[in-house]
């Protein structure tokens, strides 16, 4: 047990986070972008759990934050998907390049 350091986990979660970021920036499909976001949120959840377990095991703050964050991200996803579906209904397409009508 002693060998497992907090840092190892943190590295994994950070990579997950920025993979999500990368995906957000590069993906062409709105749903794919949303999937990338899940990575981001998920990595944060891991962070909270990790910090709680490794550093501050006395209370369950991180634990509960993760719990609530999962719920919130579910909400976000639901609403986002609703909006995307709505776009799909409007223009029969959910490519992000079609979301460039509003610009300077």
């Amino acid at each position, binding site marked *: 047990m002693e060998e497992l350091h907090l840092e190892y986990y943190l590295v994994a979660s950070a990579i997950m986070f920025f993979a999500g*970021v990368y995906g957000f920036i*590069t993906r062409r499909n709105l749903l794919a972008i949303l999937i990338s976001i899940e990575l981001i949120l998920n990595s944060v959840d891991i962070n909270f759990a990790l910090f709680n377990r490794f550093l501050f095991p006395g209370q369950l703050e991180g634990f509960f934050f993760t719990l609530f964050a999962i719920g919130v991200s579910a909400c976000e996803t639901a609403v986002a998907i609703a909006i995307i579906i709505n776009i799909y209904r409007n223009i029969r397409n959910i490519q992000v*390049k079609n979301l*460039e009508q*509003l*610009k*300077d």
Partner: protein
Amino acid sequence: MEYTLFIVLLPFLSFLFLGLVGKRLTPRAAGYIGTVVLAISTCLSYITAWHYFTTAKVDGVFEKLTPLNFTWLNFTEKLHIDLGILLDPIAVMMLVVITTVSLMVHLYSVGYMHGERGFQRYYAFLSLFTFSMLGLVVATNIFQMYIFWELVGASSYLLIGFDYAHPEAVAASKKAFIVTRFADLGFLVGILILSFYTGTFDFERLTSGDASLFAGMEGLSFMGCSVVSWALALIFMGGAGKSAMFPLHVWLPDAMEGPTPVSALIHAATMVVAGVYLVARLFPVYYLQAPDVLVLVAIVGAVTSLYAAIVACVQTDIKRVLAFSTISQIGFMMVGLGVSGMEGREGLGYMASMFHLFTHAMFKALLFLGAGAIIHAVHSNEMEHMGGLRKYLPITHITFLVACLAIAGIPPFSGFFSKDEILAATFHFNPALGAVMSLTAGLTAFYMFRLYYRIFWNKASHRDHAPREAPGSMTVPLTFLAAATLVAGFIPFGKFVTSDSAEYIIHLDWTVAAASVAVALIAIGIATLFYRRESPIPDRLASSLRGLHAAASRRFYLDDLYLFVTKKIIFNGISKPVAWFDRHVVDGAMNGFATLSQRVSYSIRGFQSGQVQQYVMVILLGVLLIAVLALFI
């Protein structure tokens, strides 16, 4: 002697009255009101003169009286502009001269200006001028003098440009004002310097000979001259401008575009001698603090005098001749002041200068009024339209002749006495200068008689109808002034006006007198030879001295220089670039900021691409950048 206030105030009231309600009056009524008011003023000034010269003498010296003095404007504790009345011999003399000539001109104008448009306005302006001039001479302090100095300038401007529909008149009035304004700048700066060091404007204190006043200026010099010299030279510049001294005289010949009576009053008798009066007023200061400036005054006077006399010889417009003659004569007065000392015999120049001022006022006013009568008769200023007028205009002829003789310096006419004393003083000061002035006197006699002959003798030009003698309102002043010219020379002037206010008995310097009379006579002789009848000699002479003649006709190109300076240098050389700079560089910079913002605004529009991923990218980069900056720098 508080009633002297009314001498000054009455013309002002007349001005206000005529200016405000003049339009409702008939021209005749306006003329009479103006004349009558001035007549009262004149009487008062005569009374003042009598009163003053009989009572004001204390221990053989005329006292300076200030019947009235009140603070008009405070600057500092020490410096304040007062308005008041200072009576001393020269002030009283000037009061007499001004009111007399002005009265004559008022009277004369009733006839001369008859039927002119704006007759009421004319009288209003005349009153304004008289008021200003009177205010000037009774000034108790140099700033009061400056105030009225400006006012006479303005009224001169208004009167020269009286016929405003006439472009030449307008241009002349403008020129007169601007040139004298330029000179006044010197005057003002001079006042500033003087008052800064002495802490007073007051003539009485300045001329009291109290050296401690000038203690602050001691040892200070600027560009090799002491500061007090600078101050006084600058003040003299103001005087030189008003008195049309070379090279600031350019405005005066042009000022002849104004009505002739105005020329008589302002540009011959009164305003143009203000410069002389100024120097005379400050004479003790000049003499005690900056004798070098007095030399400058003398030299400028002499140069001007000679220059104007030469130019006068070739002018064809009779008023221009008289104008240059005026310039020349004022040069004499300046020379007189410049060569003068303080006391007794040394002070002859001063006394002579004032005397000449007095006599000159009479005969030059007479000459101008005579010229007015001639112009009135032939409707032209040009000599070639005249000739042989002596038959038609007898009174004018006689009076004009009297004036010519006076100015030529033939005894017993008044000009002889005054001019002769100036010459005497000049010879006493410097024989070479004396010789120059004698030559000038000779030239004077020559051009005056050239004028006289070409008007009244010579070949008559073609006329549609015979010229008629002027009406009584014009001949009365002529006669009066002629009489004055005749007797003025016998006034024992030294009893009244001297540099130290003490009596000084004039002794004619017979050698100088004889020489100058001789020169004058020779000059008259030559003029008779040339111009009494039509003669080819002048033309021949002119063509043989073509260069000189042409230069003299063009007034030695000084007017061209003036034009060059105003049009080319000030207008095109300074103002246009400045205006361009303002619009394009200064304003351009302000507009440039606006344009720049707009440009930037347009150039960054691509930044807002409408791509949500780019937005997020920017957020991310923003975070990273802030992190790098905040953590690693």
